[in-house]
């Protein structure tokens, strides 16, 4: 097996009784765009800070090209980072900010000028050299911060929710820029966010963090199609969960009884810690089909509301025992014409496309 480019091995970080990171192990390939996705307090930022050297892990190791990073102080790690808050040096101009890492490294004056203008060109801010950061928008400041973090060609670039202070439109614009810069430079990026859409848009692979651990690592499609845990299923994409009774399970497939008596077989089963008789069944809104007349193995529901969302229509429904399920139908779906609020309808789905979590 070839040696991984960046290897995080069993990182653990505790503050007294509080466990910030329980156990994180992860390999990152050179040039990969890896995102740490999770809610706040899931340990993703702490892991990034340990990589940057701002915090020491209680346990575990980090290897870059097979060499442990932990004994190297931050300023010698040669890692780039863009922060959540604006961290440009306010007393320096944009050009001086980008030149800062090169000045520290005693690069020659002519080379500094050349590399600074190249870095600013990369983030599309040519000609802003003499501007003070305070006179720039948040998006521009983060682009300068990106130029400053890339100007010394670090092997790894860390990004800690760099777009969370920006509005949605600007955020999408800069996400596109980050993708382009990743493709142009080939730098390995570790990106922290709590925004699943951002993670899906940017990443090669996503590591989903929950309570100080990684629940699952995979491409966006893998996580969406085959979530390993209830948490991942709920965090990536839109999801409905209903309670079901496990009748039997073998070889990772289960036979379930749904409320109302419907029995389905061949549902991919993910045994959790409880392993009990009841399970939570994941039903993706776009995988459900809706019919105004009774269908075999259908789930009887009442129509609660119908919302037109442009390219699709969201129908919110309620099962007999009060669980709500939302269904997404493409615009112009035939069932829409024949149903209205308060009507009885039947939902059906392919058992193989669902997942049960015990």
């Amino acid at each position, binding site marked *: 097996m070839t040696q991984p480019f960046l290897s995080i091995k069993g990182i653990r970080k505790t503050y007294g009784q509080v466990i910030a990171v329980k156990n994180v192990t992860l390999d990152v390939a050179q040039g990969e765009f890896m995102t740490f996705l999770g809610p706040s307090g899931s340990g993703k930022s702490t892991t990034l800070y340990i990589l*940057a*050297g*701002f915090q020491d892990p209680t346990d575990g190791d980090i290897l870059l090209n097979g060499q442990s990073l932990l004994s190297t*102080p*931050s*300023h*010698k*790690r*040669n*890692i*780039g*980072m863009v*922060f*959540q*808050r604006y*961290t*440009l*040096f*306010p*007393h320096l101009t944009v050009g001086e900010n980008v030149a*800062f*890492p090169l000045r*520290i*490294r005693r690069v020659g004056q002519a080379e500094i000028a050349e590399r600074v203008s190249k870095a600013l060109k990369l983030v599309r801010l040519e000609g802003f050299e003499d501007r003070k950061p305070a006179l720039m928008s948040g998006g521009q400041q983060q682009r300068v*911060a990106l130029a*400053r*973090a890339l100007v*010394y060609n670090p092997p790894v670039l860390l990004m800690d929710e760099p777009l969370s202070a920006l509005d949605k439109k600007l955020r999408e614009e800069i996400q596109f820029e980050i993708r382009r810069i990743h493709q142009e430079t080939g730098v390995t990026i570790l990106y922290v966010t709590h925004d699943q859409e951002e993670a899906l848009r940017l990443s090669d692979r996503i590591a989903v963090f929950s309570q100080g651990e990684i629940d699952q690592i995979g491409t966006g499609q893998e996580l969406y199609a085959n979530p390993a845990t209830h948490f991942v299923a709920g965090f990536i994409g839109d999801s409905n969960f209903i309670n079901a009774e496990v009748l039997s399970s073998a070889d990772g497939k289960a036979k379930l009884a749904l409320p109302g008596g419907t029995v389905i077989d061949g549902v991919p089963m993910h045994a959790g810690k409880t392993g009990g008789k009841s399970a939570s069944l994941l039903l993706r809104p776009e995988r459900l089909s809706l019919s105004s007349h009774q269908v075999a193995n259908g789930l009887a529901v009442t129509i609660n509301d119908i919302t037109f969302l442009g390219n699709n229509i969201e129908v919110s429904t309620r099962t007999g025992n009060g669980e709500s399920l939302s269904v997404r139908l493409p615009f112009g779906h035939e069932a829409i014409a024949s149903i209205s609020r308060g009507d009885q309808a039947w939902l059906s789905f392919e058992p193989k496309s669902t997942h049960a979590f015990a």
Partner: protein
Amino acid sequence: MVVSATTDGGQRKIRRNGSFGYVVPALLLIAFFFIIPVLMLLMRSVLEPTPGLQNYRELLGSTTYLRVFMNTFTVAGLVTVVAVVIGFPVAWLLAIMPDKWSRLVMAIIILSMWTNLLARTYAWMVLLQRTGVVNKMLINLGIIDKPLALVNNLVGVTIGMTYIMLPFVILPLIGILKSIDPAVLRAAALCGANKRQCFTRVLLPLSLPGIASGALMVFVMSLGYYVTPALLGGTSNMMLAELVAQFVQSLVNWGMGGAAALVLLVVTLVLYAVQLKFLNPNRAR
């Protein structure tokens, strides 16, 4: 009054019509107790004993008085530098400490400011004298053989005044240092800056407005300080405020006293103008 304006920075304008009347008493107060006395002093300095600039000529032309000016500027300069050098790390510590502890330390600092000035100065006299605690300790530690002369000279004045001036450096600096985002220093570290470079290239430039306003306050207050130089400085190392007192109290020479006071005032105003022009904290941020 110059001092409080330094921290205040901008001027506030009264715009609402009709509210002007309310400030008349304050304006009268300022006119009667500040502006008119200063003008009277100016008048006396050019009118007594005979009209002309001979008071200023004598003050700025004689070596005796020039030595007083030298003493004054040397001590004020030294006190300012030492107070900033000691005060900066203290302010930094207070800025990064947990609030609970920093409040306690601040309370101690402020309590020392509230303690009577004479008491504090006499305390230094006791500590610094030939048989005082400081000398005894240095001898016992084997650092010196004979007691050092720490009082009745400018060393004593500098030590005593630095102690008194320290809070005036620390308090404005805390605010500035607290406003610096620690993430900026982290960013500097990841850019490759070691601790010293983080300090000289980021922290120091960012806190310069705070250092400047604290230093100016200390320098200006030191120029006109009377009690501590009078008690710790001895008779041969006179400073400007003592000279003014001597002119007025012992020699009853209001002309020379006024001239000396006005020279002090002009120096202060010039320094203040320089600070407003180049290091205005409101503009730099």
